[in-house]
């Protein structure tokens, strides 16, 4: 059992190391669509809490448009902006759950 298993394990570890080096040496293009979907889901999460910001959806659509047109750098930059806005909007929603009541005129 061990005579077969150990060499196989060694081979697997070597193959794994090789694949890691390969990935590091030849970075691939980011998967724009999955990054975009992740950012859009974050936007939807903020929206479900009633805190979506005015321009986030537009920014994300613009990001997609630019990326498709070959302006990858601009597309990624806009994507990052839309993602950051979505996260900030959700953070605002979480903060306001505790804070809004402190502003009630008493």
């Amino acid at each position: 059992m061990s005579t077969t298993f150990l060499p196989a394990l060694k081979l697997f570890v070597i193959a794994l190391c090789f694949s890691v080096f390969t990935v590091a040496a030849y970075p691939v293009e980011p998967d724009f669509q999955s990054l975009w979907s992740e950012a859009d889901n974050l936007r939807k999460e903020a929206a479900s809490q009633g805190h979506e910001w005015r321009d986030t959806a537009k920014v994300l659509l613009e990001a997609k448009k630019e990326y498709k047109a070959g302006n990858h750098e601009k597309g990624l930059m806009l994507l990052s902006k839309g993602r950051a806005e979505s996260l900030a909007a959700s953070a605002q929603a979480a903060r306001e759950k505790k804070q809004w009541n402190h502003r009630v005129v008493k």
Partner: protein
Amino acid sequence: MGKLATLIIALTMYLYGNTLFANPETERAAFRAYFHAKFPDVKKSDFVNGVYALDKNSREQWIEIEEFPPYEIAMGEGQELFDSTRFANGNTYGDCFGDGLSIRKKYPYFDEERAQVVTMESAINDCREKHGAAPLKYRAGDLAKISAYLSYRSRGEIIDVALSSAGAINAYEKGKKYYYTKRGQLNFACVDCHVSSAGMRLRSEMLSPSLGHVSHFPVYRLKWGSIGTLHRRFNECNKQVRAKPQPGQSEEYRNLEYFLSYMSSGLEFNGPGVRR
């Protein structure tokens, strides 16, 4: 020991009393007291005039504008629509609203059956749908014109919102939460502009006080160049703080209108108005 316990209880009551025993009535009293203290020279009944109650120059200009009010044409068109519209089933607006007198003061109210706030504008569309007509757009156009006409016919009547059920209080609470919650990229709540900063300038314009806000809608805004409903203004406020606005007559806006109307109860309706 007994004295110490009494002292602790008294201190707790003093510190947290407002929170523990807050109710709509005490909140309304506090809301009004805030504005009356902030603007001691403004007559209490004058808060229905918004910034024109606070700023002498703006008031003079407004009085001049009111000589030939720009909402008059829309109001006339509203009357025409109200009087002459005949739905496919032969009914008219009159079958829902009678002769159009004393309508404004009935709204907003909490409809127990539907478990939601009904505003005058939503009632106009309810009427249309009941008689088989398509609903009108909520923020401007024909609906705002009809609303202007009905508001005009109710001028001088008193805003009177009663929170007479658990459902009504729940709607009030939701409206209150919306009012006091910061939103948008600029991180503003309604209270930031219309309570804390009321009377201050935002660029060239003065920020109006919330007390009396609902009395004069719909308004003809010079900026819009047309007449628009209260929910059109809510929508614009949201956009100005870079929050995604709600559609007209969304639950959020209806509850907000309900909350604001309760806060202004006792003041007069004086719509339609004109604003910059």
